[in-house]
């Protein structure tokens, strides 16, 4: 039954292989879309089927537990939703569509590997697999658009190389002090080292910085807006959500390894979180391009989720997982609206939203739910997520941090509500109404319902997340 342990990964490999063969010959866009939609659902089903698996594979380098399996479900759900919310791939060069799906599958494969990786080299390579696939898909944007996508691609590539360098440098220190790359062995030596050796803290922070790049947390956030703006709408919705979830999984694993006694690491993370929230929210206030706005908002949200991580206890980690699930749904709701509105795959500004409540009531409603969620207004999942994260931090006595975070949430309300106001503002002349296909309608309803339902009834998800955190061991 060893196959069952790797079922989600193998299904993703299958998806990649199918599109590899599609890329060899001519393939109609409709066929591709149907294939992608079907295979992504198959991947989700495989992840759900592998839910209760447990085991250690490949000589202690790969750990399958409830924690990793939960993340695999969230990741494949994200893949499913991104593929379903962007059918037709309007923003992508026509000849490159099979390869586009191929790289989406490979990137998700890298992320699922990352959520299970239990050894430093495996972690590095899984991260790189997902990163390489993303480098390739950013320049796939339609050539008739502005050429910003090339700039975005090269920036993403160069800064990712720097982040990987930093990560490896940090790893070399951790390896030099701990004498092992296996997380299982490091768990015995690292907690003491973190308290006695400043170098272990430096190494660990550098290691984490490599992941912060993907999470868009403060010291590594600067290129996020350019990348989001330059990429196609469907690419951005993928880059803005899935890598962050995978990275949170590995950050939780590493921070729990270090233990709650490493106060200096907690302090450093707290400073990063506060800076990230403040910079993200203040810069988002003046943006006009919707994707740029969501980029700065994602920088701010990276700060909030870090508060959950730095609490270093079961509740904090579970809150971070729940928060990331909410972040996925709310952001995908916003990107879904952007994709549906941008008929040619162009970038949207606030002006494009005017009169949306008449042109497409469902889209306006979904956008409002997403924006209210990202602000943290009840009864959405965003409110419950923030509430959980702040409660965890308060239990550890991080009062100042929580006060700063709450002030930041208040600032963020300004620009999120600006989105809602634009969507519900009447238009001078009657604009064209947006027609939605049945799949888009059902997807919009699903996102809307899940944002609200998961916010009202969080107990099940949080209990599951806590159990998952316990299973890390």
């Amino acid at each position, binding site marked *: 039954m060893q196959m069952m342990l790797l079922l989600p990964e193998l299904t993703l490999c299958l998806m990649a292989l199918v599109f590899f063969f599609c890329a060899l010959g001519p393939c109609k866009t409709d066929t591709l879309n149907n294939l992608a939609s079907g295979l992504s659902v198959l991947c989700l089903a495989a992840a759900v089927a592998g839910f209760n698996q447990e085991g250690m594979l490949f000589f202690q380098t790969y750990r399958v537990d409830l924690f990793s399996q939960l993340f695999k479900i969230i990741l494949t759900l994200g893949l499913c939703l991104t593929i379903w919310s962007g059918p037709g791939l309007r923003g992508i060069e026509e000849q490159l569509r099979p390869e586009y799906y191929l790289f989406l599958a490979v990137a998700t*494969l890298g992320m699922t590997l990352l959520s299970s990786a239990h050894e430093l080299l495996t972690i590095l390579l899984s991260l790189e697999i997902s990163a390489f696939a993303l480098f*390739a898909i950013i320049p796939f944007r339609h050539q008739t658009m502005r050429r910003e996508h090339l700039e975005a691609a090269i920036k993403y590539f160069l800064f990712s190389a720097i982040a990987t360098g930093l990560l490896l440098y940090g790893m070399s220190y951790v390896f030099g002090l701990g004498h092992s790359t296996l997380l299982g062995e490091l768990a015995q030596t690292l907690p003491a080292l973190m308290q006695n050796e400043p*170098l272990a803290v430096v190494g660990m922070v550098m290691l984490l910085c490599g992941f912060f790049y993907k999470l868009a947390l403060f010291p590594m956030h600067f290129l996020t807006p350019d990348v989001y703006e330059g990429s196609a709408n469907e690419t951005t919705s993928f880059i803005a959500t899935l890598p962050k979830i995978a990275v949170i999984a590995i950050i939780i694993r590493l921070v729990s390894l270090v233990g709650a006694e490493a106060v200096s690491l907690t302090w450093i993370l707290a400073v990063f979180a506060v800076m990230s929230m403040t910079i993200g929210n203040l810069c988002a206030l003046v943006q006009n391009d919707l994707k740029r706005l969501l980029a700065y908002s994602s920088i701010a949200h990276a700060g909030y989720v870090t508060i959950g991580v730095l609490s270093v206890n079961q509740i904090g980690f579970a809150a971070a997982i729940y928060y990331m699930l909410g972040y996925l749904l709310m952001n995908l709701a916003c990107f879904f609206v952007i994709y549906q509105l941008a008929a040619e795959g162009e970038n949207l500004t606030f002006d494009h939203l005017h009169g949306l409540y008449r042109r497409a009531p469902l889209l306006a409603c979904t956008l409002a739910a997403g924006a209210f969620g990202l602000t943290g207004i009840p009864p959405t999942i965003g409110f419950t997520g923030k509430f959980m994260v702040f409660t965890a931090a308060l239990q550890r006595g991080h009062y100042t941090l929580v006060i700063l975070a709450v002030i930041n949430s208040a600032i963020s309300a300004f620009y999120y509500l600006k989105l809602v106001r634009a969507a519900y503002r009447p238009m001078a002349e009657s604009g064209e109404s947006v027609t939605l296909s049945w799949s888009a309608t059902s997807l919009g309803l699903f996102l809307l319902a899940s944002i609200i339902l998961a916010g009202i009834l969080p107990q099940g998800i949080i209990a599951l997340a806590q159990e998952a955190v316990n299973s890390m061991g």
Partner: protein
Amino acid sequence: MSFYRYLAEGLFFGFIVCIFAGAFISLRARQLMNSVLGLAISLLGVAGLFYHLGSPFLALMELLINIGVVCVVIAFGIMVGPKPDQAAEKRPPPKRNRMLAAGACLAASALLLWTVLNTPWNPAIARIGDFTIRHLGESLLHQFCLPFELISILLLVAIIGALIIARIGRYGARE
């Protein structure tokens, strides 16, 4: 005996200088070709370090693969590609930025140096000094088989990605 030790130390620092010089040449070069040469020099130093640490096999592989193949392929790519009209434009960054960058780099290296020098580096209890091919092969295909396989996926992704990006360049040229 001490003569050989000094020789070894001298060689070690020689390799370090080689790595840094290569990196510096690569950074400062205004022709792409000089950059590649800088990279090759730097990698030569890395190969020397492997030799110094007692693994001639890794040193040879570094020479063979990284210098012999990677650098030659890059050089080949540059020669086959269109001839650059002129050297890259040199635009010095504003003075304030340069000072800030230098300050940040110095602060970071001071922090690292201080912590590295103040750390008692305990040698591992059971760390075998066996860097033979047999041992390397065993650990690659046994203990580290998963990372080893992941490298092949990574290379595959990189190759397909590079091919497609090259093709995008073609479309751009045709339009």
